[in-house]
């Protein structure tokens, strides 16, 4: 039994709202949370520490409210999807008729950091469809760049205002969502330390290990090694030759690109959720790459498909 604006809806009821002050933020979030608390629905709230403290002070009963303690939930889009799926499964198993979730993506004002989160906002329309979830995504107009506002309107079927007015987003793209092209890394404009053409995954790993040792932490280097291995394997098996690996290094960071001349995965959700069926398919390797503590960008272009991996500090 679902309550509130999502009454009678099936699957993920996905809304966005914009606020420009704490008062507007409160006007958006308090009715959403209080209505859920009154209906006995689990309420999941994921903002930064300051906003979480404000919300705690505004709500009457926090016993049904979860503030995910793990700030790493939003480390990468794929991990956020997986972490929330596990939470939803738990609540549904405990009999929840609806789960209310509200949160804010991290560091939106920080230029290229939005990379990949546009795909997240598009993907959750599909991948959370199995659950009675009401998702309210709030964006601060002070930090959300125009490109972010554009993505929000294209990825949320409904928009709610601080005054409580709900409207359909006229720009919502259901299946034909066009992801933002990844922001180029300055290092990519320079000559790579090494370029390997049609070489094995093992050779790519050896080159990366040699260049990356001491440049980034062992933990990040391990993630990059796992990532490049999966990306090269995919390029060799599923891509169109030549498969080209380029590696750049700067103090405290490594950038790797794996390019082939094929079209890349057609599925707009590729990498964000595990592929169904055969584990040996392209999907699981790409999904694994997205679970790592490295920045991952997929680029579809006329000259082929590129997986870019960045470890260490993500900008120069």
């Amino acid at each position: 039994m679902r309550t509130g604006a999502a009454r009678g809806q099936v699957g993920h009821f996905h809304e966005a709202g914009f606020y420009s002050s704490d008062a507007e933020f409160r006007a958006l979030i308090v009715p959403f949370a209080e209505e859920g608390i009154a209906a006995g629905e689990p309420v999941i709230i994921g903002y930064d520490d300051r906003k979480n403290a404000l919300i705690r002070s505004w709500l009457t009963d926090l016993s049904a409210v979860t503030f995910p303690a793990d700030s790493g939930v939003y480390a990468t889009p794929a991990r956020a999807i997986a972490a929330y799926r596990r939470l939803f499964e738990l609540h549904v198993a405990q009999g929840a008729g609806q789960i209310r979730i509200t949160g804010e993506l991290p560091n939106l004002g920080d230029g290229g950091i939005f990379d990949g989160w546009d795909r997240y906002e598009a993907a959750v329309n599909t991948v959370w469809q199995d659950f009675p979830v009401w998702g309210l995504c709030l964006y601060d107009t002070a930090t959300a760049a125009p490109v972010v506002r554009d993505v929000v309107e294209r990825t949320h079927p409904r928009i709610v205002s601080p005054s409580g007015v709900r409207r359909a987003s006229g720009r919502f793209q259901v299946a034909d969502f066009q992801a933002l092209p990844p922001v180029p890394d300055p290092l990519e404009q320079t000559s790579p330390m090494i370029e390997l053409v049609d070489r094995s995954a093992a050779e790519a790993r050896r080159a990366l290990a040699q260049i990356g040792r001491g440049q980034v932490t062992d933990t990040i280097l391990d993630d990059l090694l796992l990532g490049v291995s999966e990306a090269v394997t995919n390029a060799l098996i599923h891509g169109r030759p030549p498969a080209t690996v380029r590696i750049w290094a700067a103090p405290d960071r490594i950038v790797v690109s794996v390019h082939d001349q094929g079209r890349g995965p057609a599925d707009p959700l590729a990498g964000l959720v595990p592929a169904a069926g055969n584990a040996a398919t392209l999907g699981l390797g790409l999904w694994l790459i997205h679970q790592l503590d490295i920045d991952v960008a997929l680029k579809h272009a006329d000259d082929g498909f590129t997986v870019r991996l960045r470890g260490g500090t993500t900008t120069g």
Partner: protein
Amino acid sequence: MRMIGPVGSYRELGLQDHLCWVHGDRGDYRPHLGEFFRDGLGRGLRVAYLGSGDARMVRELVGRVAGTGPLRSGKAVRVISFEEFYGAEEPVDPAAVTKRYDAATQEALADGYRGLRIGADMTDLVRAPDRQDAFARCEVLLERYSSRHPLSAMCGYRRELGDAVAQFACLHAAVPAGLTPFQVFACGDGAVGLLGEFDQACQGAFERALRRIEPAPGDSTLIFDLSQIQFMDHHALLSLDSYAEACPVPVIVRSAPPLVRRAAQVLGLEHLGHLRPGDL
């Protein structure tokens, strides 16, 4: 100390080393075999050549390569026919073969030697594809046996076997460098050791090697030691997980390097569930 991993030389092998030696032809193999035998004799081992063909000619050959002159039975250098160890039945019975290796090793010890050293060119025995599985299983058991008993062996395989060579090579503790990206070897405590790089490129070979590993009779668990792994991707980890699912006893993995632990954590493996805390 057993020699584990890729090796560049057949020299300096100890009492329990199990080496795969790949060569072009018999003429290429014999000098190495001779050195292997002379080294064994110097270590106080009984050495034995496992072969087939005209017994007199083989004895003369082995005496020559071992530098001992004409052989006399029951002494330090022996010639044993393939049939004596591997029997006449098809396919060969790996457990029965291992018992014969054990009996010969115990006999050498009883005769006052420090152990048994065997050299054999396996090429003709394993040439037929339908015999290869049973012989590979023999190698797995021989590897396990030599890790705990004073049996050292140099198993020769000729290059003419093509891709089949790698499937035998990967089941030896010591192999020529560059022949196989990974090895499955026996640890001294009964665990199965994995060494090298495991990725999609050798996925089929790894799964085939896994199919040839069985828990030792009477063992309540099967332990995989992952400490020598340089790299393992999700394909190989899922293969190991599937193996664990089908294994009749619980599979335990230990000493996984951080990179392997990381990949396993991301994959949320289900069937390597009986893990020692902190190992994976």
